[in-house]
Every structure is written in C-alpha cells, then in structure tokens.
C-alpha cells in the first residue's frame, strides 16, 4: 500500500437491506484501521457519524469511493442513491441487495398495497385498531411532516443510478471485502461496470465429487440422508452452486446445505434464475411431458424462491405481474 498519500474520502450507505453487509465489513477486523488510515469516512450510518447536509454541501465527485448496500424501495433511498452518485467518483453496489435486490427484492412478488396490508393490518402481532397506515405527508400544527414514499417495486441500485462496480454476496465475505478494498487502495480495479470477484462458480470451490447429471426427483434437504461426498444436485437437492459466482468458499455445500445463490450470476449471465432454471431443467431425467410436469410440480413448489431468491429484482421480468398480485 502506498504510504504518505493524501487521505481519500469514503462513504458507506445502507438502503433497503438487513445490515449484514455492514457487519461483514466490520468483519475485516483490525484491518479496519488500515481503512481509516487511508480514508476519511464521511458517512457510515451504521458505524460513524455523518450528516446528509454535509454530503449535500460537498462538491460533485468529492467522495472517492462510496460503498452502497441495500436496494431502492423508498423515495428517501432513491434520493440518497442519486445524491451519493453525484458526489462520488466511484460508486460500488455493495452486496446482493444493491447489486440484484436480494431478499427485499422478493417483495416484488407483491405490490405496495398488499405489503401494507400484511404489515399494518393482517400481521398477527399487530395492534393497530384504527388501521393507520404511514402517510407520506402529515399536517401537524408545526407544519408538514414527511415520510418517505414506499414504492411498488424494489429496484437495484444499478436500476436507479449508474454504478461503477458490483460486489456480490449476501453478505460479501469479509475476505472478499478486504480484497476489494485492497484493489481500491492499490488502484487495481477492473473495467468499470464489472463485478469485483471471481469468474467461476461455487462448484469451483466445492469439494464434492461431480458426475454426469440426471435428476428424476427433487428433494428438500430434510427429505433425504445427504451423501457428504457427492454433488448435492445429483442427489436431487436444488443446489444453485452451478450457476452462482464463486467467492464464498462453498460454505453451504460443505455443510450438506445446497447453495442458495447469494453471490449472484457469473460474468456474462443476464438472468441468474433463468440460467439456473435452464441448467436444472436440462438434466431432468424424463422425456414424458406429464412425468416432467409431475417431477417439477412436486419437487419445486416455489419456483421464484428456488431460482430467484436473490435476483428477482435484477431479473428480466423483475417482479410479479402487478395485475396478478
């Protein structure tokens, strides 16, 4: 790392996400001190103080790097995305939510009305006798109070503003975060627009033995005794590792749990879920349409959750047909 260079400015932001990304960032441990040595942290809602006003007042491009985690679900998040874009030289979609929508993106199976219905009306743990819903504007004697507007559709950061890099993972492994930080510090970032990470899939890191594949029946993990040495997909478990970018060290498959796809698609794949779906369907072991249908319907009751757990918002179709919600 180059010594004695002027300190840069770093912003970390958190939109529609769970906070895991921040925790994983802190998982780089004492190396966070190296980060602090090289950067002034101008904003990090989870770990440091920093005011929106101060950012607004900065010159365009004054922030060197912004690590932005979370998808865009509200007007406030969208505003912050636009603001940080303007003020940052390099904007990184940090983690699965910002890159491809992640679990919050599964909200795209519903619309705003049905989300509110569940959260503010139907939830069993709720006490809301008057059925009050959050209002974007509330008049109080002191003036108008604003709440962010909640959107029908969750968008990824890239669908909202132009992003320079994506760092995949839910959350990104601390080691991968450190790799990325080193790349930033050493100015060894890849081509703008690309994903910072490996260009192979989880299978590359998975120690299981793989053979030619034929699937006659899909199982849920609890339905079978898992052979610890053999490829999970070959055993009928819907493992997304074949279609998912490496980087995690194949953590899940190593403990007999199929990969759920949190690192997103490999380079050059346009639609993660479709690519996985196409691969898995190709090796279904039947030529009889009725049997194929039965294998699918019985084995994969929740296709969206199985193939698009992390990438629905970034998929070609992005959401469920609103007309059908």
């Amino acid at each position, binding site marked *: 790392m180059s010594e004695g260079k002027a300190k840069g400015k770093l912003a970390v932001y958190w939109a529609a996400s769970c906070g895991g990304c921040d925790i994983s960032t802190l998982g780089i441990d004492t190396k966070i001190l190296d980060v602090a040595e090289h950067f002034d942290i101008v904003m990090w809602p989870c770990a440091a103080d920093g005011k929106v006003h101060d950012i607004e007042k900065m010159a365009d491009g004054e922030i060197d790097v912004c690590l932005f985690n979370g998808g865009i679900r509200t007007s406030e998040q969208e*505003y912050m995305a*636009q*603001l940080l*874009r*303007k003020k940052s030289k390099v904007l990184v979609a940090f983690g699965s939510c910002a890159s491809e929508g992640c679990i919050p993106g599964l909200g795209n199976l519903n619309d705003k009305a049905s989300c509110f219905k569940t959260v503010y009306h139907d939830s069993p743990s709720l006490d809301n006798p008057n059925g009050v819903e959050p209002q974007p504007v509330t008049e109080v004697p002191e003036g108008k109070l604003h709440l962010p507007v909640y959107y029908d559709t969750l968008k990824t950061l*890239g*669908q*909202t*503003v*132009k992003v320079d890099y994506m760092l995949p993972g839910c959350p990104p492994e601390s080691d991968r975060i450190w790799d990325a930080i080193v790349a930033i510090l050493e100015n060894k970032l890849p081509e703008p*627009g690309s994903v910072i990470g490996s*260009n*192979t*899939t*989880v*299978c*590359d890191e998975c120690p299981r033995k*793989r*053979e*030619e*594949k*034929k699937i006659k029946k899909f199982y849920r993990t609890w339905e079978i005794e898992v052979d610890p040495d053999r*490829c999970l*997909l070959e055993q009928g478990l819907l493992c997304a*590792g*074949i*279609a998912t970018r*490496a980087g995690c060290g194949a953590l899940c498959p190593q403990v007999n749990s199929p990969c759920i796809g949190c690192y997103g*698609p*490999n*380079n*050059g*794949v*346009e639609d993660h879920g479709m*690519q*996985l779906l*196409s*691969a*898995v369907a*190709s*090796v279904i072991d039947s030529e009889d349409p009725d049997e194929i249908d039965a294998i699918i319907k019985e084995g994969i009751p929740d296709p969206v959750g199985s193939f698009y757990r992390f990438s629905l918002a970034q998929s*070609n179709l992005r959401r469920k047909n609103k007309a059908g919600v």
Partner: protein
Amino acid sequence: MAERVGVYICHCGSNIAGTVDVEEVARWAGENIKDVVVSKDYKFMCSSLGQAMIEEDIKKEKLTRVVVGACSPHLHEKTFRTACKNAGLNPYLFDMTNLREHVSWVCNDKEAGTAKAKALIAGSAERVKYQQPLEPSYVDVHPATLVVGGGITGLQAALELADAGHPVYLVERSPSVGGHMAQFDKTFPTLDCSACILTPKMSEAGQHENITMLTYSELEEVSGSVGKFKVKIRKKARYVVEKDCTGCGICMEKCPRKIVDEDFEAGLGYRKAIYTPFPQAVPRTPVIDVENCTYFQRGKCKVCSKVCPTNAIDYEQQDEIIEIDVGNIILATGWKLFDCKKVPQYGYGRLANVYTNMEFERLCNAAGPTGGKIVMRDGKTEPKSVAIIHCVGSRDVNHNAHCSAVCCMAALKFGHLILEKTNAEVYSFYIDMRTNQKQYEEFYQRLLEEGMHFVRGKVAEVTDAARNPDEQGKLIVQCEDTLLGKQRRIPVDMVVLMGAIEPQADAKELGLKCGISCSMAGWYTERHPKLDPVATMTEGVFVAGTCQGAKDIPACVAQGAAAAARVQGMITKGKVMIEPIVASINEEACSGCRICNNLCPYNAIEFDPVKETSHVISSMCKGCGTCVAACPAGVITGAHFNNQQIFAQIDGVLWDAKPAGGNGGAAAKAAEPEPVAS
C-alpha cells in the same frame, strides 16, 4: 461499437414488393436504425447485378456488416455470403432476413406486411452488429467406408465402393451375409431364383481384396465425425477360428444337437447347434449356438472339436472389439417382419395352417425344409385352397400406418407359385392392388389369367368355427367382398398372412450411435425425401435400403449404389468443410459442474478429470446450442448464435413494442438516472 451496416431489401419482382412497401422499409431502416449507413432496395437482389451492388458498397462505403432482406436463408444465404466474401468481408458478418416466405407470401395486407418487415429487418440489423468473423474448417476424408448390414443393399454398396478401389468394412450381425433375400425363393416379377442372383454377389464380396467382411459382428460405438470416424465393432465369439476353418462342414454334419431354426427357416426347418444359416453362406465358417450346444450347456460332447480336421474349434474364444477408422458410414440395416400374432383374429400361432409370408417363402423354396413342396403343417397334405391375406400389420394405424410396398407383388408371386406347383384354388384378399413399378402391372395381369381369385376386402377374421358342414375342418376366411357389398365366408385349407415390413427393433439405438434420427415409426430420416434420399442430416452418414422405408429389391440395389456414389464423391474430393457454427467452452471460467456433459448426443463435450473442466471437441459438435442454453455459468458460447446476438435480435424485432417512457430492458439495466437531486 461503430459498425457500418448496409441494409438491402429485395423486391423479388412483385413477390415481396406486392405485399411489402420495400422502398419504405429501406428508407426507414436507413433513417432509424443506429449504425445503418447504406439502405437500398432492388428488384432482384440475388441477381448478379444485385450482388455486384452489395460488393461495391462493401468496398466503397467500407461496410463492416451486411443485412439482406429477401427470401428464406435456406435458399440464398450461401449466395450472399459468397458476395460478402468476394468483397473481402467475412461471410459470417452477414445476416439474411426472410421477407418473402415469412412476410409477403403469408400477409394479405400491405400495411401489416410492411410493419412486420421493418421489425424483422430491425432484428437482423441489431443482431448483425454482434456477429463475429468465423472461419470454416476442413477435414481430410479417410478413404475407408463402414457399411452396416450385409443384405442386398449393403452388399451392393460395398461392392460399388470396393470396385472403385476404396477399402470397405462390411459389418453383418448374423453369421452370414445375404439378408432376407437369401431366404426368398423367387423374385418378382421376373421370377428369377433369388439365390441365383444373390449368391454370386455374396461370394464376390467375400473374396474382394478391398472388402473386410465382419460377420457375426455388431456396431458397438461410433465417435468422431465426417471424414474421420472411429468405430468400435464387437466381433462375437464364433467358437470357430476363421483362419483355420476350411468350411468343410463335417462339424455340422456330426453335431448331435438338432434345433428348430427360428431365423433362416422361419421355424419350419432345423439346424444344428454348430451351423451356418444356409449352405451357400458367406463366410463358410460356422458358429456355435451356445444356448443350444450340449457342451456349453452340460460340459460334455465336444463332437465338433473331435471331428474337425483342422482343429478350428475353440471353446474358449471370446468376443473381440475391433477398432477401425473410416471416413463415411453407410447404414443398410434392413427390416424385420411384423409379429403376426398381434392380429389375433387371423389365428396365427393358434391355427396350425396359418402361415406368415416368410414361412411361406421357405415353404416354396427348393432349398427349404420341404424341398419346395407346398404342404400343410402335417408335412404331407397339399392344400386344395389357399387364402393370401394382404396388409397384415400394414396400412393399419393400430400397428403400422405405412404401406409395406412389396406385399402385393409378393402375394401375386405366391399365387403364381401355388398355381404352378399345386392344384389349389388361390384367393387374394386385398384392399388396393399396388403394382406400380416396371413390369409389375403386367405380372398382375398374368395372375388374373392364371386364375387366381381376387377378393377386394380386408379380412375380418380367420376362424375354425364352422357354421355349416361345408365349413367343417376348414379355415374359414370371413370378410366383406367390398365389390359386392356382401359378407362372404370362404373355407380354405391354408392361409398366408402378408406380414408388414417393419423397422428393426433397435433402429433408434443404432441411429443414435451414428448420430442420425428416426421417424416416429423407426425409419431413418433422410436429408431430403426427394432430392437427397440417401444422405442424412449428419455429414458422412448415409442410409440405404429398407432401413429408410419399405421398398423392393430393385429400389434397395439402386439406393445401395447411390449411397456408394455419394461416398465416392466425398473420397474423391478428399476434404470436407465443417461449418464453424459450434459451441466452445471458456475453460478458464468453467467450474466443471458437469451439467453439459450428458446433454450432447454426439459426445462432443469431454470432461477433463485432472483440470476438472469440460471442453468441446469442435469437430464433433453439430452446433445445436443445447449446451449453450444449459450452461449455468454462462461459459459456453455458441458461435453465430450467442446470447448477445440473440438478445440483440429480440430487442430489434420488438423495436416498436417498448413503452413510450423508454423503459426498455437492455437500456434499463444501466438506467440513466433521472436527475432530481440537484
């Protein structure tokens, strides 16, 4: 990407211009599609003037991509690729839009036709920008040929090639070549003795210096591709050493075990446990039928070994796998007889004197079990009346929808032989009399004169349930005489069922090994039913004879010769072009998940267990793209049909479908931010 695209719209006289406003399409493409720098229409684009225009523009306007909107690419893709090549542009940087077959000829309305033409042109123009220069490859053609099947078709093909000086491997699964034709007595319509015309060809093939005859052998595995197939053949153990055997036949004479011969004699005659199917068999080396050999079953006997003057018997012999290299393959695997028991109402298998056509061939064959005497199952009584039933298992959607093509003539032949050899009355029960080759109708006329009775009607049942004393002890053939419109019951002594010609039971499996497909029924699919009847969709694999469809001997011989001629053409040319439309795997990025491994029917994808990655053997790849669509990591690319190209084409054909807001797919992925924050 700043490509320079030229778009050319053909009028095709009024064929396209009649329902598509070609000037408008050309104008629109020039003004609206990004990177289109030249856009023209012309009366006949495929004419030499049209081609010259494109060539000139490529040079003058420095075009890097060309789109021609004309007829189907299946007609003129080659023409325009050549034009591009002539002008120095890689031919794979061209795309053809089908404005005739897919637009003008199927549209009524000029406005709709013009709109559809614009969309298709937009698709091509967007696609062509992503196309990549490709180079076809060339392979040397190995001069040897594999012929599978030693019937008359395979023999003919093998002899044609061998006589032209090319090496041939002739593989036959039974112990002798000859096929079904060796079982026949006479051949219609000339009534030549079948053996007399066939056996010279058999022995010629057996002795030919260019023919390696592998009988009692089966095709095990085929790999490689046109020009350089690698073939594994299983040579089944005969238990007789071919090089030592002189074919003297003493072993067969002395063998104490006699069994019913279900194959060559169709169950009517006997053979020994060590046997050749028939006396003129080629080669003359017998085989031991292990399942019926006393030594193999009980460990004692060895008579054959004791009597053999040259010690050629080897009970320890094992199957042998022979590997050969060939440039081309001819499949001439023939047919099998329909199982007449599947039509229980005709009583075959239950009523003794109901025969199949193959049984009857043996029955009237002078070399057959009765010495050519036509007698009933008791072995002595001559029938006083015989019914011949056509279309048993043919022209019947419950069994085979096809017409077996030869049964009408074979039935007439049988009729003639019965009338010649016995005093019996002969009845033919037919649906339609099909005698449509040279001298066939004349033969029908002859049988009319000879007094054969013809009843037009498909027989309903053959029964021994007599209704009156006249019918007692007879087989009663019940049918509607459709020319009278009346039901008839005709008592006879003997019934011959003209069973259908069916595809071999393992035709599909064998086809799969060679990379060719079958129709639903099981006939091999030819490249073009009229214009390319012996080639298949797989380069270097040809089909001939009845494995492609029911046909008579002259047609089989013609196809055998035709296939040989096609192969000779390949050998003479010496090289064969391989289209560059193949898949390739970026091995760097392949994680070895092995999804693709068993998706390729041509085994073109190989897994390297050391590197733990897969790769495509491009000479074996036929370019279907199935693995490309299946690769979960997106590391397999299909040349000329890659994702980028197809996505661009989708984008293009839907140019008018995107919503007004411009929230289009590809564009939206990297959305221009709407500047709100200031």
